[in-house]
């Protein structure tokens, strides 16, 4: 095995292996298990940093490729690799898991089982981001389901069973659709000489075939729709978002952080990594619907958030709204009558903006959920109308919370702004009308976030129950809050740190898609790329 193989495999499987060792801990040694888990997540974060160290941002191709035969009868490989797009998300994942591990101190019963599932979940997520074989991707995708189900279902709130099964069902449904699409690609790839006449699951080969326009238009449209539904559920986009508020509300705080911070990104990542490159024609075919759906999600989520009285539900709906930008950014691919891409740079900006929005949302929404969790741990309710005056009781906490909520609001200088602004700026090129509607989201967002801040943090005194429990945050909580706040600022002030990492990959992706689209339009004239500005 090469160094890359060891490094990437270790990154993925270390948490799962560590989870096995966790089984050997004594049930009583709760503190030791927590520290151990935290240490594991930190080590994994270190490994992702090591991956970053070997990563070359100037290369838009897949790097650090690892390919080993897995199920040879079906041409399935254990294939890993990173490019600029997945690299950033891998970093985010490892980072959020460290924070969530720190936040897991709030879990008091069945700690061992919780931590084991927690670590297995990390393996699943990292696996999804790193795998380059469709089958492997799918396996990791579904592997995440089980731990998540139990993490919500066992350690969640009062309606946890409902929420967990809802989450499971939605995701499984999406997964089955993805499975069918996967088979479509698998069997259709056999017809291409690029796959050597064999059916393959290898994403890189499939992308090449798609780029050469060798999947016909019909297949691309059907497969794209199937894949998109699967990923849109995770994203989540209207109208398949209703699992999210429930799941978020019922999940324990660290799991909400992971759910919002990472799992939602899998939807966006799936669209970028699978749905779009494999169906360039399908992507273009559906582009307007996608953008419209994204815009609608933005507005819808914001309105819905405004009407909530449950603090966590509000944050959950804000996620729907924020992830709408991702969908918009991904799909702003405009073509003219002759099929040439118009303003490819704007599309690149949209894609990068969407990616950045995912990263930013990963930081800010994880932070928001954590902040809700901190206060919930103290007063055990989340009714917005019963809060107020936290600024007086818990100034340190409130200051951090306000910063993080402002990051969610999209305030310049904090992470939320860049993604939203870039996406919105790139949208006019695609459709002025949709761009205007999307932009109007900034008002609504400001509305509900500020109103929330006012209701919870401002005001003279706390009105709800358990006022005496509102103790200032402890060191651990403060550390998490500070890390999130600092990253929110760093990402907001120097976004090129992340955008630069994905620049070439995004550029390559758009060019490949444009080429694939043209090839699909006219199979005879394959590899003719007419990209005009």
């Amino acid at each position, binding site marked *: 095995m090469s160094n890359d193989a060891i490094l990437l495999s270790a990154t993925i499987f270390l948490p799962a292996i560590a989870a096995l060792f966790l089984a050997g801990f004594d049930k009583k040694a709760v503190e030791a298990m927590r520290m151990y888990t935290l240490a594991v997540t930190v080590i994994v974060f270190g490994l992702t940093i090591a991956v970053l160290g070997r990563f070359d941002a100037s290369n838009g191709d897949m790097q650090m490729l690892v390919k080993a035969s897995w199920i040879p009868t079906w041409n399935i490989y254990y294939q890993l690799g990173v490019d600029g797009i997945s690299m950033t998300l891998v970093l985010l994942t490892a980072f959020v898991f460290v924070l969530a591990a720190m936040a897991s101190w709030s879990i008091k019963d069945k700690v061992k089982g919780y931590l084991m599932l927690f670590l297995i979940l990390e393996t699943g997520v990292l696996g999804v981001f790193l795998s380059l074989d469709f089958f492997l991707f799918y396996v990791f995708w579904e592997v995440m389901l089980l731990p998540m189900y139990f993490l919500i279902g066992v350690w969640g709130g009062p309606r946890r069973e409902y929420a967990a099964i809802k989450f499971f069902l939605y995701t499984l449904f999406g997964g089955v659709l993805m499975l069918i699409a996967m088979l479509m690609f698998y069997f259709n790839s056999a017809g291409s000489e690029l796959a050597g006449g064999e059916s393959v699951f290898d994403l890189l080969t499939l992308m090449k075939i798609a780029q050469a326009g060798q999947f016909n238009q019909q297949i691309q449209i059907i497969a794209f729709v199937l894949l998109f539904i699967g990923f849109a559920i995770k994203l989540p986009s209207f109208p398949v978002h209703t699992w999210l508020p429930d799941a978020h509300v019922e999940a324990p705080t660290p799991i909400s952080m992971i759910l919002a911070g990472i799992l939602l990104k899998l939807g966006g990542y799936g669209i970028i990594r699978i749905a779009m490159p494999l169906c360039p024609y399908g992507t273009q075919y559906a582009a307007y619907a996608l953008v419209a759906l994204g815009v609608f999600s933005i507005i819808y989520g914001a309105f819905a958030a405004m009407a909530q009285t449950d603090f966590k539900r509000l944050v959950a709906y804000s996620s729907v709204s924020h992830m709408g930008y991702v969908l918009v950014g991904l799909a702003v691919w405009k073509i003219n009558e002759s099929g040439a891409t118009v303003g490819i*740079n*704007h599309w690149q900006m949209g894609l990068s903006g969407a990616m950045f929005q995912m990263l930013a949302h990963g930081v800010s929404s994880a932070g928001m959920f954590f902040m809700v969790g901190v206060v919930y741990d103290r007063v055990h309710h989340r009714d917005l109308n019963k809060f107020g005056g936290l600024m007086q009781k818990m100034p340190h906490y409130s200051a951090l919370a306000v910063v993080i909520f402002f990051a969610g609001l999209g305030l310049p200088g904090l992470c939320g702004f860049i993604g939203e*602004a870039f996406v919105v700026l790139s949208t006019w090129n695609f459709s002025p009308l949709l761009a205007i509607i999307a932009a109007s989201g900034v008002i609504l967002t400001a509305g509900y976030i500020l109103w929330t801040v006012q209701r919870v943090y401002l005001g003279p005194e706390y009105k709800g129950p358990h006022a005496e429990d509102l103790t200032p945050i402890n060191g651990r909580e403060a550390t998490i809050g500070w890390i999130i706040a600092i990253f929110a600022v760093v990402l907001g002030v120097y976004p090129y740190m992340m955008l630069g990492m994905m620049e070439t990959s995004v550029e390559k992706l758009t060019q490949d898609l444009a080429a694939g689209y043209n090839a699909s339009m006219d199979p005879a004239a394959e590899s003719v790329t007419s990209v005009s500005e």
Partner: protein
Amino acid sequence: MSPEIYSEVGSLLKWLLTAAWLLPLLGFLVEIFGGYWADRKSKVPAYLAVGCIATGFLLSLIALGTWVDAADMNLWAFESAGHSAEHGEGAEHGDDHEHATVAEHDHADAHDEEHHEHASADEHHGNDPLKTAFSGTFYRLGKFGRLDVTLDWYIDGLTVAMFAMVTLIASCIHIFAIGYMSDELTEHYEDHFVHLPGGRHFHRPGRFYRFFAYLSLFCFSMLGLVLAGNIFQVFIFWELVGVCSYLLIGFYVERHSASTAANKAFIMNRVGDFGFLIGLMVIWTWFGVFQFANTDPAHADQAGLFQMVRTHDGTLVTEGEGMEKTVSLQHIEGEARPSSIPYWLLTVAGLGIFAGCIGKSAQFPLQTWLPDAMEGPTPVSALVHSATMVAAGVYLAARFYPMFTPEVLLVIAYVGCITLFIGATIALVVTDIKRVLAYSTISQLGYMMLALGVGGWIAGLFHLITHAFFKSLMFLCSGSVIHGCHHEQEMTKMGGLYKKMPITCWTMFVGVVAICGLAIPFVTLPAIGAVAFSGFHSKDAIIASALTFSSLNPVHSLLFYVPLITAGITAFYMFRMWFMTFFGKPKDHHVYDHAHESPTVMTAPLLILSFFAIFVAVGGEAGPLVTLYGAAEPAHVAMGATDAGNIGLNLPSHEQIHNFHAQAGMAALLVAFAGTLLAYLFYASGAVDPGTVKRQFESVHEFLVDKWRFDVLYDWMWQRPVHVVASWCTAFDKYVLDGLIHGSASSVVKIAQWDRKFDEAVVDRSVNVLGEVTMSVANWFRGLQTGQLRQYVMLIAVSVVSLFVLVFIFFPGQ
């Protein structure tokens, strides 16, 4: 100037101003994280903040000197040029006044930032484009092919003038605030404005350090806004000053009115920013750059916005007519992007950006947040909500002037015109001392916008700077009064205070005279010009521009009469305030008896500011101030334009304005004196009883007290964020006609509730229904499984037979 010298001067300026910009940020960090919550009585944060901003002022002064030196400019040009009245135009162009008579385009080139890419090699003194503007890049935010989003800096006369002004005023206000906020220096601050249930008193630790931290953060944001070299960056800092304003308005977080006002300010600004964003989108899509202009000879091939939209002599090259009309873009030959932009889209972009200015500068129809913003401490009102942030809208409109089509300018003019009238009329009836000033601010900002709209670029900015001084002065005076009267703001409870607080009284007088534009008529001094305070000069310039404009475009003559009349109203309400506060009999003896003059730390800034309020505009339009920033004037302004745009607007040239100057000045002065006299009659001499007049005009008075019932209208508008401009008009009509429009911020909540219901009723329900259907089918199946063996066996037979029948029906080949 050679490229070497250019880059040398440029980087020096950049470092000076960047340092001045970042110092307050440093101050903010230290103040916030310095652990001052442990020592609530420490004044260190205040000294730190003052130190930062004062150092910033010094650096700005150095930068100003450097810039003047580099631009080879003679600020006192009018001395050699004789009386400003005759040679103002030449003088304001500084050193090259010897070229004043050469052809227009030469003249334009000489002091415009726009340059031709080959111009750097041009040794001709008058045409050297590099000497008045410097630009460059800090770092990159993101790059997408040819699209490059960066943080830039752009330094010209306007930048350095704004820097000096902002830092100077901010320094004064910081010092003032040390005194004003001193009652926060305690562990147990009791807030009488917060009413707890049960009549308890609200106690909290003092937040002295936090106040100064916010002020520092604001200064950082404001300076960043001025230094910004591209429109996107402006947007970033635009929002940052907005959030600082939010934090400062809501400084008393426990007061519900304060936090609501803060939210209102922020959200109203966001409405404007929505327009701003649309403008940005258009620009980004069609131009692909955000930089104002690129004057760096090292990167001469990268044209900025202004360089693209106008030729180097400042004309807009258009083709076609009507909706087909397009504007050709310059400097982009050989690049694969559109070489033209539809004219209407450029107009939309301009309107979009201006929508941002409307929000920030509290213009009609988004003006209502500014009076509410007076919930913040008075130094905040002085700094943020009169002198700097709200003027940022005007600044941006001026900065972005080359991008505006005549249609946009006309909109700006009318918006300004409406605003200045609304603001002034409401100020007539307001009795809260700070709110008088707030409405006055709105009105004055309207003047500035009007000036920009009618082609008086110089006049608008002139008023911006003079207004900053005298209005911040007046706010500080009012702060001093409030402080002296123990947080009493109602003028109806004051009176006769001049005995108790003479310094405040007379510095306030300076401000009042300045804003009213009073002068000694018919007296002009050599080397100084008219004998008057700063306000006279700038208001004079605005009225002159307006008069010129309306004489060129008689259709729009309202744009002259309204501001003229309003000048009288201004004088009336300002003197009303002054008289009511300081003269007459004390109306509330409790207030009067406890009133006292403020300490030196507060009065000293008053004196400094009065000095500037008097002298900053010395020399009028030929004075050093105008010379300084006038170098940044866009090329096309001086020439004027005839039949411009689709609507055939005539914009005045410098020369034309100059011709109307004396006429306009006289009219304005006359009106101002009339207003002053009236105020004297009403409130000082007692010759007329204000109460009688009030009763006679009961309905009008009530209407004005209700602030033209704008708040109602504004709430209603939330329903239509997308069609915001259209709904403004129709809703306004409706409102004015019947005044019955209901609605509140809850309308949004209603939509949201409906939305949630939909979510629960439809989307969730459909999932549940699916589940129920499955369940019922399952139950039906269960019913089939009766457990009756005989039925089972029967079923074998039935099944076989039915299958056989099916085979018969579906068997192929028949």
